[in-house]
């Protein structure tokens, strides 16, 4: 598969993320597919950060392995990333800033010195333009047409205009020219591709999907890697008609969302594991009161504060167990922005239909990585019916908010609707919503009523299973190895399967857009025929594997578990797969 991997690294504050975004956007506008990884640390200035843009005419699902063009803004970047340069690769750097020992450059790769500071000084004595010069060189080496690249740069300044913007655009041209004079482009990925593509992160896709699903209220407390959901929604609050509230903490955020849902709008909250830990009690309240609610849980490396800017899939057990007692919930786990967009819509549909909380499990790698989306893959015109139903219940004209039904779902009225008042109660209650916990608990009739209410609620799990997406097999039915994975990890597995196919190995992948409730028969149908499985998860104990064993009895003797905070790389999956195929 033709592809190009472009990487830029430096210190936090050096503008690496913005270099990366500009590159990524350029590739997307060329009509290439892209995956962009933004690797940073929990510090605002200094340290080491880097961005990798991987582009190809075909869809790419992960950051890929190694790099072709490396832009090192500091010596440390050279030190850390030179070993990843592939055949024909080139490192771009400014010898005025630091030197590179030629011996450190991998065989088959070269160095291109670009006097970024000197080029920048042409316009202003400050060093603010050096990145533009370096990026220009990158653009040339990556086969990005100059005008397109200059447009991307000037767009990155938003509505700002003025000489600084112009300087940047011109300085990029200087860098481009310098590279043209001294190097040659890597045109692997430059074969003309289709229409310009949309570029978005998983979080942006979730926010957009939520808005499309009719979400009118988002309450959130900042927490990496969920914060950018709020940022995007806040920036588009008026246009999308969504009230965005930064709450005083996560306890408030989820309760505000629950209140808003009760009050009559589709509502969401989003957080990471630490904040979700604070939402655990409220989740159960939503389950008990049967209030639709969407909660995005974007996982990061734990436990506790852990590695706040690194990825992990370590919170599945938490999501499964969250809340005292038992109530129905669903957990959706998209793996790519396109899926994330649709998962958000699905989450609202499930929450609404089954009147219970739905968790949308993401992680840093999905939430913050960039990927291309074809315009045709998302449809903004999602039908959004009014929530003001007419929930009469037939029996004696009396409105029973928690009426027993076949599905477990009862008609729900909204405040403001005349004659349909009810009290949402977190205590156990009867069909009317009146408490069982006080003067009725322990009385035989009501003891039985409590059991019925439990069954009514728990019964929804069956409906949730029917209504949600079953597990999926990708690849041939007959395969020597079946990967089992969920969430963002699927991306690298897809890329690894491609590599393995190149090596003549037939593999397939079974993954779980709905992690819970587990679709037991479908899971068994897909996995029981598997010759050999390889469970791939970004956590220590193989939490999906544990869940599947609980629900289906299936065991996964072969595992590739990773808990170092880094995303999976296709080649490490390939390596482990080959090991397993060799019977190791």
């Amino acid at each position: 598969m033709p592809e190009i991997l472009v990487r830029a690294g430096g210190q936090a504050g050096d503008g690496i993320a913005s270099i990366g975004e500009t590159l990524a956007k350029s590739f997307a506008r060329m009509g290439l597919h892209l995956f962009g990884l933004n690797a940073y640390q929990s510090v605002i200035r200094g340290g080491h950060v880097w961005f990798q843009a991987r582009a190809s005419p075909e869809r790419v699902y992960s950051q890929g392995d190694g790099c072709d063009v490396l832009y090192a803004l500091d010596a440390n970047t050279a030190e850390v990333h030179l070993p990843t340069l592939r055949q024909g690769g080139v490192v771009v750097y400014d010898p005025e800033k630091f030197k590179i020992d030629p011996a450190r450059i991998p065989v088959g790769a070269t160095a291109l010195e670009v006097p970024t500071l000197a080029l920048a000084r042409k316009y202003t004595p400050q060093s603010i333009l050096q990145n533009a010069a370096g990026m220009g060189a990158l653009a040339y080496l990556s086969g990005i047409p100059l005008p397109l690249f200059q447009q991307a740069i000037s767009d990155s300044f938003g509505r700002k205009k003025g000489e600084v913007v112009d300087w940047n655009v011109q300085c990029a041209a200087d860098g481009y020219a310098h590279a043209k004079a001294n190097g040659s482009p890597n045109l692997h990925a430059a074969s003309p591709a289709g229409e310009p593509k949309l570029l978005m992160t998983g979080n942006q896709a979730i926010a957009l999907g939520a808005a499309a699903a009719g979400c009118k209220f988002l309450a959130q407390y900042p927490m990496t890697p969920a914060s950018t959901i709020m940022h995007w929604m806040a920036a588009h609050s008026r246009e999308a008609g969504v009230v965005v509230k930064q709450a005083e903490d996560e306890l408030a955020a989820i309760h505000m969302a629950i209140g808003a849902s009760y009050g009559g709008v589709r509502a969401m909250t989003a957080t990471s594991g630490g904040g979700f830990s604070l939402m655990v009690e409220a989740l159960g309240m939503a389950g008990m009161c049967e209030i639709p609610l969407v909660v995005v849980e974007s996982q990061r490396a734990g436990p506790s504060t852990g590695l706040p800017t690194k990825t992990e899939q370590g919170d599945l057990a938490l999501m499964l167990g969250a809340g005292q007692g038992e109530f129905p919930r669903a957990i959706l786990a998209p793996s790519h922005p396109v899926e994330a967009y649709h998962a958000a819509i699905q989450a609202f549909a499930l929450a609404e239909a089954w009147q219970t909380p739905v968790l949308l499990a993401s992680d840093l790698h999905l939430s913050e990585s960039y990927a291309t989306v074809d315009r045709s893959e998302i449809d903004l015109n999602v039908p959004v019916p009014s929530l003001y139903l007419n929930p009469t219940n037939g029996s004696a004209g009396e409105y029973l908010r928690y009426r027993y039904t076949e599905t477990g779902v009862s008609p729900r009225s909204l405040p403001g609707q005349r004659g349909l008042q009810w009290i949402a109660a977190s205590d156990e209650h009867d069909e009317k919503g009146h408490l069982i916990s006080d003067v009725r608990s322990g009385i035989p009739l009501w003891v039985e009523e409590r059991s019925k209410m439990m069954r009514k609620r728990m019964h929804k799990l069956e409906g949730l299973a029917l209504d949600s997406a079953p597990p999926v097999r990708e690849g041939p039915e007959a395969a020597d190895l079946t990967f089992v994975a969920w969430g963002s990890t699927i991306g690298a597995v897809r890329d690894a399967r491609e590599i393995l196919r190149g090596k003549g190995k037939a593999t397939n992948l079974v993954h779980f857009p709905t992690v819970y409730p587990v679709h037991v028969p479908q899971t068994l149908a897909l996995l029981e025929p598997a010759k050999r499985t390889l469970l791939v998860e970004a956590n220590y104990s193989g939490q999906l594997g544990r869940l599947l064993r609980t629900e289906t009895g299936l065991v996964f003797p072969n595992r590739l578990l990773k808990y170092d905070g880094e995303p999976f790389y296709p080649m490490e999956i390939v390596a482990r797969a080959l090991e397993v195929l060799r019977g190791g």
Partner: protein
Amino acid sequence: MADSASATVAPTGPPLRMVVGKSDVKPTWCPGCGDYGVIAAVEMSLKKLQIPVEEVVLVSGIGCSSNLPHFLNSYGFHGIHGRSIPVAEGIRWANHGLHVIVTGGDGDGFGIGAGHFIHAMRRNVKLTYIVMDNQIYGLTTGQASPTSMMGHKTKSTPDGVIENPIDPIALALAAGATYVARGFSGDVKHMAELVANGIQHKGFAFIDALSPCVTYNKLNTFDWFRQRIYKLESAGHDPSNLGKAYERSLEWGEKIPIGLFYRAERPTYEDLEEVLEAGPLAKQPAGIAGKETLLDDFR
């Protein structure tokens, strides 16, 4: 999807316009509990204001006091301990055509809920917040509450409380509440007035309702209060003066003021939230069909 939920049976016609009154659930409070006075005041004030029953939402947490929503016939949300305020904020923002009244206990509001209390006040979200302050944890059978007085012997403090009580009035003033009052459940009419004015106030209205727990608080009884309370209205207090309000908030001992401590005008959160200019959120169109420009960022 679950079709039995969306099955719409032909409407039988909306019932007649009705104002808030008792529900068919009888209060379960102990005989003599102060909370009877508070609910009477709430009912009286709502009757006076003639707000249609379906436009009132009573929100509470957990505690004896927090059972209140069940005993009136409006909409209600009887949530979890300490979290009534953010639920109420969410309801209010979802539909600011509604009157959202929060009722709860001193433990619920000033203990576990203290953070939300403060933030709602600085926001000036339009809520009426009535705390049935009995200076004890009633429903959990008598532990110290944040307003229990120094030295009070309770189940959790058998040798007496050793921390200063929260002063809810001072706290509300410091947090920026725009309507700060104290009522006494032994004077229902006076409290009803405070509540009615609170409901009409444009902003966060806080009413500390002294509401003795006759079962677990043998110190701060109806009698104890009757010997001490006086009305700010009769003392010539000027509720527009923040400094004077702070001064009055310090009075807790021989004399205990009730009435309106402070009132100010400030835009509410709902006034300032631009998305709400188009009317109650619940009645606005939802979704982004056709809003192609939302994709501009991604191109």
